[in-house]
């Protein structure tokens, strides 16, 4: 990572303006579900589509924050963060499947439809406990965290850095995709999980559930941002930047670089897992396609477009690229991948500090 990309924290009035803007954005998001409840003919009415799509983008923004913490600060470019996000989603998906109970097509009291269809006699052991929400939530953090700990430990201990680490993470998410495609894994194979009925006693696909999930996502976003800023503004944040720019020099100062990288990578994976856990009940489906390497790369592009190493840039990137995607895939669906690639090339060439860099340049 070249040092010129590290933008100094905005000083004084700049930081205040930034905080006010972010507060404004959070408030604007916070009123969306309320406006959704207004009568449809009201000028301020917001459609269900807007609410559900913004709820989804908020979970993407949390994923982007997680990536920025690892990449923008510690220089760990993971091209497999989609895997952590999807594992979190699968954990909550398993809970949602258990909650369907006898309401499935086959009416089996315990087994989800796909298991009945595939001839399962009883629930596999690793499905036990998922009928309890707290357990499923814990797994949505623990499974991605554990995977990140193992992959990270092996890679960081062997001092695998840069593009080599990125390739390993791509392989990780690809391998998981292939594994989850298999029917005998017990995760619904190709089709994944869908037809969810309820969560925490709330029937899904109702305005109440939509706004509850929306506010839960928004709360997680605010908390994640607070946690990430706390880290990046601490001495730990400066150690991470030092590792990003001159890893071996940090070792000669007596820092155990492996531990620091592992700390931030695992934390980042846990945040991604939580984001996935909020994503799945909002979109109502999870399948192995979410593990596809392209998804992870796309999430990294959000961060690059917004401006890495700034946290705010990650949020800005996640919202703006996804807004562009939603619009473009409606008007010209075939163009999206070209647009995404072009965007990445253009940002790399002309906006190395992303949209945030552009904003601060214009502000000066």
């Amino acid at each position: 990572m070249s040092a010129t990309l590290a933008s100094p924290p905005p000083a004084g009035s700049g930081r205040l303006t930034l905080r006010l803007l972010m507060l404004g954005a959070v408030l604007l998001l916070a009123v969306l579900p309320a406006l959704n409840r207004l009568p449809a003919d009201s000028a301020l009415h917001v459609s269900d589509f807007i609410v559900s799509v913004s709820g989804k983008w908020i979970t993407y923004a949390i994923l982007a924050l997680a990536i920025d913490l690892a990449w923008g600060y510690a220089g760990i470019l993971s091209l497999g963060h989609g895997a952590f996000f999807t594992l979190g989603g699968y954990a909550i998906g398993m809970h949602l499947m258990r909650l369907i109970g006898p309401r499935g097509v086959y009416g089996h009291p315990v087994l989800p439809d796909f298991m009945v269809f595939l001839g399962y006699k009883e629930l596999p052991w690793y499905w036990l406990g998922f009928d309890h929400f707290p357990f499923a939530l814990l797994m949505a953090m623990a499974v991605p965290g554990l995977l990140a700990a193992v992959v990270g430990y092996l890679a960081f201990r062997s001092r695998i850095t840069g593009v080599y680490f990125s390739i390993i993470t791509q392989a990780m998410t690809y391998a998981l995709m292939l594994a989850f495609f298999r029917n005998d894994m017990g995760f619904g194979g190709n089709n994944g999980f869908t037809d969810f009925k309820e969560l925490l006693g709330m029937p899904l696909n109702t305005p109440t559930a939509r706004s509850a999930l929306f506010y839960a996502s928004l709360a997680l976003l605010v908390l994640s941002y607070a946690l990430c800023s706390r880290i990046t503004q601490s001495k730990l944040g400066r150690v991470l930047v030092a590792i990003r720019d001159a890893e071996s020099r940090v070792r000669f100062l007596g820092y155990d670089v492996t531990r620091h990288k592992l700390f931030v990578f695992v934390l980042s994976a846990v945040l991604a897992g939580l984001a996935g856990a909020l994503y799945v009940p909002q979109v109502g489906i999870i399948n192995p396609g979410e593990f596809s390497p392209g998804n992870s790369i796309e999430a990294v592009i959000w961060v690059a477009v917004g401006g890495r190493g700034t946290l705010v840039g990650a949020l800005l990137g996640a919202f703006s690229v996804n807004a562009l995607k939603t619009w473009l895939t409606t008007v010209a669906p075939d163009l999206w991948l070209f647009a995404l690639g072009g965007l990445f090339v253009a940002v790399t060439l002309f906006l190395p500090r992303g949209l945030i860099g552009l904003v601060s340049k214009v502000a000066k």
Partner: protein
Amino acid sequence: MSDGLSPPLGAARDAASVLYLDGVSVVFDGFRALNNLSLIVGAGELRAIIGPNGAGKTTMMDVITGKTRPTEGVVRFRDHDLTRLDEATIANLGIGRKFQKPTMFDALTVFENLELALKAPRGPVACLRWALSGEARRRIEAVMEEVGLTARSRDRAAILSHGQRQWLEIGMLLMQDPELLLVDEPVAGMTDQETEHTAALLVRIAGRRSVVVVEHDLEFVRALGSKVTVLCEGSMLSEGSIDHVQNDPRVIEVYLGR
């Protein structure tokens, strides 16, 4: 000059010796970067190391700091076998290193660079919970004063001149509060006055700590007034006072070229 040539085994346990190298060789693809090198540095001693390019000076520092594993030989710091430890553990035992090419963290300010080097718990959670105490701030400010960077405290390291970068890295070394300082070419790029200041600083530091200085500038080495070790082709060629080594015919032949 006989001391240090064939040290008795077990000398590392001698309270007076801090660093002890015996029969150290480093072979890269058949090239012997260090060839049966032995060296003892005493507590509080200031030692200058000179030698032509490729003599193995930097490789010797790499071996001591854990960057390179010796092919054979003994490397001890007090009672610790350094050949088994990684860079971070060695640094925490109390060995600080200044690199030939000044290396610091360009995205951080002068103050922040020194703060990272300051001796304090190094774990991620400790760093997250770290709050700069008044005592720590005073220590950092004292070192900034010592290395003449007080006015640059809030400037990013990236915009410092080469000489100031040298000073910053020396400052980082002081913050670590090491028992043994390995200083690789500290005065490259410095003015005469700065060179004098650096020599005086290193002499002052030695006594409380051991200092090993690698340098090409013989005037500077003379100003240190310390024992000098001459390396050549990975082995010790000569050792003694600066006058002694400058008059040693073998040294004149391979290095001084007079």
